[in-house]
C-alpha cells in the first residue's frame, strides 16, 4: 500500500513456538530483532516453493531473498540495517559464516526433508495448502533436496554420515568460538549470530527429539544456553511493535479450519450421491445436490460455527428427507421439465 512507512517482513507461517519456523526466514527475523529495527510480520503460506520469500517491503521498496545475496545483504547494501560493519572484515567472521551457510544449512536441509518423516516440513510449508497440492509439492521438494545434496541410492549412507559429521565439527567449532560470551564476535550481534541462531531454533524446536542432528547440538550446552538467552531477550520480550505471540498453533492470518462435522457431512453426501447415481437417473440426484450446495453456501456465511453446523445439518437432512419422500420418476420428470424451459 502506498504511503506505508513501516517495514514488513513477509515470511512463512509461525509454528512450533517460533515466530516463523522456516530456516530461511527466521535468520532475517532475528537480524532485524538484533538491530531493534521496527517492523511488522506478514505471512505467505500459499507459496512454499518460492525462493523470493522471505522479503522485506516498505511501500515500493523491496528486498527479496533471491536478490543480491539475500535480504540481509540487501538491507546492508541499501544502508537500512547493518550489524556487520565492524566485523565483516575479520577472516574468522567470513569463514564462520561460510561454515554456517554450507555445513549447517545442508545438515538442517537433510534432517528436515530426508532424515525425518517430513511431518515437520509439511506443517511449516504445506499446512495451509489443499492436500493434493501440498503432497505433490512435498514430494517434489524431497527430490530437489536429494539432487541439491547429491544423494543417490548408492551413496545415501556415507553421505548422511558426512553431513552429520560436518555438522558435529561445526557445532564444536562454534561452541569453542562462543565460549561464555554473549555473541559469536565482539560480544555484539551480527548476521552470523542471526544465521546460526535461526539454525539452532529450528533444530531444537522443530525437529523431533529422536533427531540425530538435534542430539548432536544438545551436546554443546553453551550453544543451547545461548539460544535460550536470545529467545528470552529478543523474541519473547516483544521489544518491536506488532510482534505476533508465537505458539504451536497454525497461523491466524489464513483461517481455513472448519468444524470437523463439515467434512463428515460432505462425505455422507458423497456416499449418498454415488448410491443415488447407481440406483436412479442422473436427474434424480440433481435436486438434493442443488439443495446441498445451497445449504453449504448459506451456512458458510454465518459467523458462529455452532450455528453454522446446526443449520447445515438441519438443511442437509431436510433436503435428503424431502427427496426420499419424492418418487424417483416424479423428481426426474420435474427436473427434465425445468431444464426444458426456454
Amino acid at each position: 500500500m502506498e504511503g506505508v512507512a513501516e517495514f514488513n517482513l513477509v515470511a512463512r507461517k509461525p509454528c512450533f513456538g517460533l515466530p516463523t519456523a522456516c530456516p530461511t526466514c527466521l535468520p532475517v527475523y532475528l537480524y532485524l530483532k538484533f538491530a531493534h529495527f521496527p517492523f511488522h510480520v506478514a505471512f505467505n503460506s500459499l507459496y512454499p516453493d518460492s525462493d523470493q520469500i522471505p522479503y522485506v517491503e516498505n511501500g515500493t521498496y523491496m528486498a527479496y531473498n533471491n536478490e543480491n545475496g539475500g535480504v540481509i545483504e540487501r538491507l546492508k547494501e541499501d544502508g537500512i540495517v547493518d550489524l556487520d560493519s565492524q566485523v565483516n572484515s575479520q577472516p574468522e567472521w567470513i569463514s564462520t559464516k561460510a561454515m554456517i551457510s554450507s555445513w549447517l544449512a545442508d545438515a538442517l536441509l537433510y534432517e528436515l526433508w530426508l532424515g525425518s518423516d517430513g511431518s515437520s516440513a509439511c506443517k511449516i510449508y504445506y499446512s495451509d495448502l489443499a492436500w493434493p497440492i501440498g503432497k505433490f509439492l512435498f514430494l517434489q521438494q524431497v527430490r530437489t533436496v536429494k539432487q541439491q545434496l547429491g544423494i543417490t541410492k548408492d551413496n545415501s549412507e556415507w553421505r548422511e554420515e558426512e553431513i552429520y559429521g560436518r555438522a558435529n565439527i561445526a557445532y564444536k567449532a562454534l561452541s569453542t568460538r562462543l565460549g561464555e560470551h554473549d555473541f559469536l564476535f565482539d560480544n555484539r550481534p551480527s548476521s552470523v549470530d542471526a544465521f546460526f541462531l535461526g539454525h539452532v531454533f529450528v533444530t531444537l524446536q522443530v525437529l523431533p527429539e529422536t533427531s540425530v542432528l538435534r542430539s548432536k547440538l544438545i551436546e554443546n550446552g553453551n550453544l543451547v544456553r545461548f539460544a535460550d538467552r536470545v529467545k528470552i531477550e529478543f523474541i519473547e520480550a516483544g521489544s518491536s511493535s506488532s510482534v505476533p505471540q508465537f505458539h504451536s498453533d497454525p497461523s491466524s492470518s489464513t483461517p481455513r479450519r472448519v468444524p470437523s462435522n463439515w467434512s463428515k457431512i460432505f462425505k455422507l453426501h458423497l456416499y449418498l450421491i454415488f448410491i443415488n447415481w447407481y440406483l436412479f437417473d442422473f436427474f434424480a440426484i440433481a435436486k438434493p445436490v442443488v439443495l446441498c450446495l445451497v445449504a453449504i453456501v448459506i451456512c458458510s456465511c454465518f459467523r458462529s460455527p455452532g450455528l453454522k453446523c446446526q443449520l447445515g445439518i438441519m438443511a442437509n437432512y431436510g433436503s435428503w428427507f424431502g427427496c426420499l419422500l419424492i418418487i424417483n420418476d416424479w423428481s426426474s420428470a420435474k427436473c427434465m421439465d425445468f431444464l426444458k424451459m426456454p
Partner: protein
Amino acid sequence: MGNPDEKPDPIISDYEIEEEEDDDEEDLEEEEDDDELEDDSDVAAPKVRGNREAEVRAAKAKMDNLFRRMRTGTVPLRVHNVIVKGNTKTKEQLIEAELEAIRNASSMQEIIEAASVANFRLRELECFDSVNITLDAGPPELPGTTNVIVEVVEAKRPFTGQIGTFTKGEAKSSTVEGSVKYRNLFGYGDIWDGTLAYGFDRSAEVSAGVYFPRFERLVTPVMARVSLLSQDWLKFSSYKERSLGLSLGLFSSTHHDLAYNFAWRTLTDPSQMSSMSIRRQLGHNLLSSLKYTFKFDKRNSTVRPTRGHAFVSTTQVSGLTPDSRSLRFLRQEFDLRYAVPFGFYHTALNFGVSSGVLVPLGRGFLSMSSSLPERFFLGGNLSPVCTLGGPSALWGFKTRGMGPTESRRQMRGNSNDENADPTGVDFLGGDLAVSAFADLSFDFPLKFFKEKGIHGHLFACAGNIAKLTENEYRNLSLPKFLESFRSSVGAGIVLPTNLFRLEVNYCYILKKFGHDNGKSGFQISISAP
C-alpha cells in the same frame, strides 16, 4: 379447405386401385402380347419400350398424386420398423436415440420432417461419411405402415485436424487453435481431441478432451477435458497464471450449461516487480467449482444483431471439496442485450448492460481478499457488441486498462525489464463491475459495401469497477460509484467475416481517472462471436 370430417383416403387404397389398374393393364398387356405373337416380330421392341414408358408414367402419376395429397392434407402413415444398416463400430443405441421422433410420427409429413432432423443430427455426430434415410413399404398385412431404413457409412478416416479462431466463454479474448481429433473410438460417437491454442491476450493452452454426445442412459452430452493453461499478465498486473485442470461438462442444452472445474492454479511473478496486493496473491490454489450458465439469445445475428434480445446469467460457486483450504468464492455475472431495427439502411440500435460481483466465501468474508484471477477487469480489443457474457469489454481502454491500481516496486536506477509498464502500476481489478453500451449500426449507401456486409457504427459506452472486499465496501456508495464511471464515444467501420468481426474505430475518451490506460484515437478490435 376440404370437409374436416372427411378423412383422406389412406394411401394404400390408391395402391390397391392402382394395382387393380395394373392388373387390368397386365390383362390388357397379356392380350396384347397374345396378339403380338401373332403379329410380325418387327414391332415387338417398340411395344416393350412402350410398356416401360407406361410404367414410368404410372409411377410418376402415383408420385404426383402423393405430393398433391401431402400438400392438401395429412397423409396418415405409421412406422412399422426402423432398420439400421452400415454400423459396424457405432453402437446401435446411439443411432436409435436420434430416431425416436420418427418412430412416434403418425403421418408422412411428420416422418419426412423427423427423418430430415435425424439425418442432420446423425451427421452432426461427425462419425459418418454419409447418412441416408429411406422409406420403404411396410408389410402387406399391415396397411398404412412403412419401414424406415437408415443407412450409415462410418467414417473411414477417424483422424481429423483443424485450425481456426475461436472465442470460448471462459477465454478473455479470441484464440487461434489447432486441434487433432479421433472420432468414434468406442462406438459411442465419442470424439477425442488434442488441442493447442494461443490467445491474443498472451495465453497459451494445451488440452486433451473427450466428448460423448450420448453415453449410456445419459440424455445430455458429457464432456471431459484436461488442460494446462498459461496466461501472461506481467504487462498489466505483474503476474503470470498457470493452471492445470480438469473440467467436466455435466449438462448442456440450448439454454442451460452446467460444468465442473477442478484446477491447480499457480500465480507467479518472475519479474519481481509486482505491487503489494499482487504479491499477497502469489502462490498455489486449488479450485473446485461448479459453473452454471443460462443463456437466452433471440438475436438474429451474433456478428451484427439488428433485432432481438439476449440474456446470459453465469453463476460460479467454488470451494466444493472436503478440504477447507481450497479457494472459496461466489461469482455472478449478468448480461442483457437488446437490438431495435429502424428499417432504413439496415440501421439498428444495440443496447447492452453487463454486471458482475465476486465475493469470497467463509467466515468474515468481506474482510478477506478476493481471488485475483476471478476479479473483473474492463478493457481490451474486444467489441462489446460481440462479447456476450459478463462485463469485460470497453471501447477506448486497453486490456485491463481501468479500475483500482497500485504502484509497483521501484528499482534503484533505470529498470531494463521490458515487461515493466512505464506507468509503474498494477491493475488490480475489482469485485463489482458494471458496464453499458449503445451502438447504432447502419449500412453505407454503396452497393459494394452492402454486398460485403461492411457497415458503419456510432457507439457510446461506460463502465466502472469497484473493490468490495477487505472492508472496502464501507467506502463505497452509489453516488460515488456513479461519479467514477468511465465513458467513451466513437465511430467506426465494421468488417464482418465468417470467423470474426473486425472493427476500425475512432474512440474519444469522455471520462477517465487516475492511471486508467485509455486514450482517444484509432483502435482496432477483433472479436469472434
